[in-house]
């Protein structure tokens, strides 16, 4: 595959992305001419099952969500390493496999540790 053919593929991706942004923007702009617009104070209050909304909703939330995010970062970086390794495993052979086994063992140890520390418990 030539270099220009290589870039051509990404132009196609770009076209899809632009189209994906254009469709909602155009549809919502067009919709402005056919939909009613009649906001009043009661209508634009926050919905809280019919009672008066109390306080702000942009508050601090449970720490468990942060822990999940942290775990995710570690494992997501791991997958970034796994993909090129998986493609090249043909050439890497036993050596590559052993290296990756060490890497995976350390990760699984980390998972086991957070399991033991009850980080994964939500109850």
């Amino acid at each position, binding site marked *: 595959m030539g270099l220009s053919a290589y870039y051509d593929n990404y132009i196609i991706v770009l076209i899809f*992305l632009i*189209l994906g942004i254009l469709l909602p923007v155009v549809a919502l702009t067009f919709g402005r001419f056919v939909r*009613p617009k009649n906001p009043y104070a009661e209508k634009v209050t926050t919905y809280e099952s019919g009672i008066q*909304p109390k306080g702000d*909703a*942009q508050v601090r*939330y449970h720490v468990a969500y942060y822990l999940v995010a942290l775990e995710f970062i570690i494992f997501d970086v791991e997958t970034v390493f796994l993909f090129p390794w998986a493609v090249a*495993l043909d050439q890497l052979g036993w050596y590559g*496999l052993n290296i990756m086994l060490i890497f995976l063992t350390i990760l699984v140890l980390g998972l086991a540790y957070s399991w033991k520390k009850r980080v994964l418990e*939500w109850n």
Partner: protein
Amino acid sequence: MDLLLWTAYAVIILMLMLGGVTFAILFERKVIGAMQLRPGPNRHGPWGLFQTIADVLKLLLKEDIIPAAADKKIFLIAPVIAFAPAFAIYAALAFDENIYGADLNIGILYLLGVASITMLGVLMGGWSSNNKYSLLGSIRGVAQMVSYELPLVLSVVGIVILVGSLNMREIVFFQESAGIWFIIPQFLAFVVYIISSIAELNRAPFDLPEAESELVSGFHTEYSGFRFAFFMLAEYTYAIAIAAIATMLFLGGWLGPAFLPGFVWFALKMVLFMFLWFWLTATLPRARVGDLMNYSWKVLIPLAILNIVATAFIKVWMG
């Protein structure tokens, strides 16, 4: 000239996708209706065929309410952020041997990467609404999508090891020359992929972000009219895309007996996946938040890693 051709292809795929979503929604309602011994939508057109079109027209004519407490800018663009990446997935899919858009070398990596941007829309919509139901729905949604993205991505690594390429078309060509679909040698990966895809799509039994009985409607509680419609559209666009990726990875894409053209086989396999999801929606009750998280971290991720190690061993052993 090329540019015109590509744009035409993109527009055609967009139209097909919109048609597909229209009938996927009808199909879901019909399937669940049949399983619950009721007819499902049957008023608009024969067999209720125009039900979704009527729904979309109705939503177009509804007022676009923006809550006074909302963070307006983010509130307005969240549906766009949710939809655009879901549609960008279609750029790298191959529907037949000769029907494809971008033939990317890093195909599968691109697909999984773009797919995960959709969750930004969920987070932005939920947070900017300044509504407690929306906030709970969106943080649940993001935690869940983040947790289940890992097994989803890890389950694919086994296939990459066997094929030795990230290119989606080469993955299908490999299945053709090997004469076997990856659902058999990579069955464990297939099971992990299917379960985590349900959670990625926020479908029952993992539909906690939208749990109607406790969170009204989850992260899009405050959305109305066409903006709400785009969240729904994004959800189904993503669902069809995930089904298409699964078709290419595990069921041999367009491969099939020659009496039907390749893209028909592709569509049939996708419908099979969709049916499987709708079936589960009708069958299973909703899981609890804690159980849901535990299931990903304690069952699916170890299984996916096991699959990678086993596949790598066999690959190196066989040479």
